[in-house]
């Protein structure tokens, strides 16, 4: 089985995000970029399935500008067999990304597509669901446990009521939640090995996908600063303070 993994590059989660002064976006120049944490989890899960013998090949997919190569090399260093780089100058919105993935699915015929449940930059949480709909295959979102056997994926999902276990016929789309696994560290020799792994480059324009921006961003603004907290001595003082604020 072949597994396709979405591998998006985002502003690193440790970076204190700064909004551009003109409000057109966030500062990315000179800012550390790294893999979307949920996508690292997706890749880790795919690698574990390969190590268990469930899958033979893991392919990481990235959509972005020419310099995305270095990012995809990290995915290869983590252990993916090869990478596909869809070269697109501008960021794509979820529906466009899902359409791109559909084209790649048609070409690659994977048994499973694993995506992060969302990317930490736009927090859209849509691409996996849209891909499943376009592909007309089952979806198992927010996976916290995945078992593959007999052409089926048994997926545990974390929902408000607790844990939900569902079965999905393969091929299917799985999106990952935070507690699915803990991604491995990249080791230095793996960075060397990644140099010789193939990265297929496909021009976005050649896929025949309509890049339609359904959403227009009007303005970015930094969240309002939290006001300073107050220290209280004991429960009585806390109750008094809450009452004073009209919260009790």
């Amino acid at each position, binding site marked *: 089985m072949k597994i396709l993994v979405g591998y998006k590059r985002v502003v690193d989660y440790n970076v204190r995000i700064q909004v551009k002064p003109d409000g057109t976006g966030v500062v990315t120049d*000179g800012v550390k970029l*790294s893999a979307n944490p949920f996508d690292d989890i997706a890749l880790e899960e795919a690698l574990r399935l390969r190590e268990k013998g469930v899958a033979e090949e893991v392919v990481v997919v990235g959509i972005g500008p020419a310099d995305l190569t*270095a990012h995809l090399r990290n995915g290869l260093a983590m252990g993916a067999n090869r990478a596909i780089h869809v070269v697109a100058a501008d960021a794509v919105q979820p529906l466009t990304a899902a359409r791109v993935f559909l084209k790649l699915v048609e070409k690659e015929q994977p048994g499973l597509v694993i995506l992060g449940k969302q990317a930490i930059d736009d927090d859209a949480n849509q691409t996996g669901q849209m891909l499943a709909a376009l592909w007309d295959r089952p979806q198992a979102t927010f996976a916290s446990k995945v078992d593959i056997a007999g052409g089926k994926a048994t997926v545990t999902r974390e929902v408000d009521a607790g844990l939900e276990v569902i079965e999905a016929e393969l091929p299917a789309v799985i999106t990952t939640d935070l507690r699915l696994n803990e991604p491995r*560290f*990249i080791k*230095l020799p793996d*960075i060397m090995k990644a140099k010789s792994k193939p990265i297929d480059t496909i021009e976005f324009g050649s896929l025949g996908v309509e890049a339609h921006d359904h959403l227009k961003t009007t303005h970015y603004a930094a969240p309002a600063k939290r006001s300073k907290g107050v220290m209280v001595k004991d429960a009585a003082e806390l109750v008094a303070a809450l009452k004073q604020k009209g919260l009790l």
Partner: protein
Amino acid sequence: MNTPSPAGPEQPALRSDDSVAKQLFLGNILEENLFPYPEIRARDREMLGAMTDAIDQFLAGKGAELKQYDRDAEQPAEFIQALREMGLFGLIIPEAFGGMELSNGAYARVLGQTSSHDSSVSLTIGAHSSIGMKGLLLFGTDAQKQRYLPRLATGEMIAAFCLTESGAGSDAASIRTKATRNGDGSWTLSGEKIWITNGGIADFYTVFARTDTPEGKITAFLVEAKWPGVSHGPHEDKMGIRASSTTTVAFADVRVPAENVLGPVGKGFKVAMSILNSGRTGLGGGAVGGMRTLIRLACAQAKERKQFGQSIAEFGLVREKIAQMAVDCYAAESAVWMVAHLIDSGGSDYSVEAAMSKVFASEAVQRASYEALQIAAGNGFMREFPYEQITRDTRILSIFEGTNEILRLYIALSGLKGVGAGLSELKAAVGDIFNDPIKGFGVLGSYTGRRMREATGYGIDRIAHELSPRLRKVAATYEKYTVELSKSSDALLRRYGKKAADQQHAQKRLADIAIDLFVGLCVLSRADSLARQSHPAADEAASIAEIFAKQARRRMARNVRGLERNEDEAIEQLAGAVLAHDGYMWDVI
């Protein structure tokens, strides 16, 4: 001795085989080897970002454990295993033998990243790569490499360098560990080495022993820890780099097969010096990594700490420290990277530059640790904070791999020797003027007279490389003091003749002038390259070039003056008096 660089061929060859540093003593700025500032190799650029990220990921979460290893004075076996799995023992070993084949520049940068987290980690991997198995890379036969490099690359074998003995530290040629040749061509090795980094965890030792063969006095051997008669002592209880293993290593009639002689029999001292010379960039890279951490800590502390109603980052005396740390770090980095490039380009005469970068970087990081701790003040003094450990850890840098005192003398004597050699080329009949300059005074006089005219003439020794007006002014400082250095070197030889070799106070001044010139020229060249690349911080780099040049000019002027007017004799006499008294001679009671 020519030391082939394992990563040489990919780098464009240097345009001159001469040594930049030695040429400074002759009044020449060898700008073809200094400009443009060397760029990172394409192969390294791709990987280094990923590697430093991977190292951060590996070590960043281990702060508490690393601190505990310092307290316990040991890296536990599981941690050494994690270092192996991370691939940190194969950094400079060729890919053909399972390593990563990093250039000296990339290697120095990787050690900088490990040092930004923990010095002991850098020591464990640095002692392995920089010195422990470097001899095998530089001088090993194919058979020796086949036999050991694959296991050294994975860390299955960890390497250590065994030179120092209780009576032979800086005077390494006086070692007493002995190897005698047996009838079958094998050797029997006996003696004890001290302060061996990785001594307790190594499986592979590069050992230097006195052989007293007709070919020479000292020979290098590759010795396996598991051989009968090899043993090591307990971990030393050290001031800093405590978690790194330091032990004695003893050899009791160890039989070493003939095929484990490293390099030519009798040439062990040159083998040792070549290893140490090429290993110094790793140490410099580590110092730079330490400074980066100190600057980050100092910025965070200065912005967070409020006194008198404002953050202390607003105060001039705090800002001064932070700016000075940045100048020192940039300067050290510029010099270390330049030296790494000299080695990577297949240069064979880089030992003086390597010594200069080691002296400068080791002292710079200690200044930075002092100042960062000072900014943190009371907090800095508490063990809960990282400053005290960094202060302890960096103290070794001016002691090992050649004390800074020995290296300063080495820098000055190498420069003076060049001046002497130049003279002897001028008139072959005079022979070795350095060893007997008095004999050559006549020649010396006319030679220096001619060269002084050249040197003081306008437009001579100008750096031809095109520079922005700001940097042109900086260049003028180095042009002027390069001439001063050559004049002072000449003057010293003229005044003292062969006794110049004994003038340690003067040599220190010459060495310090030369270090300021070399480091300053590296800073200048890098600032120029950053400006050409429109680097976002190119302006700040030009500022650093200006600040460094002004500070260096004051130091160089003082040293030039000090060569003529000083209190050296009084100092010598006072030292004699204190020594005769075995201590301080005064009291108020």
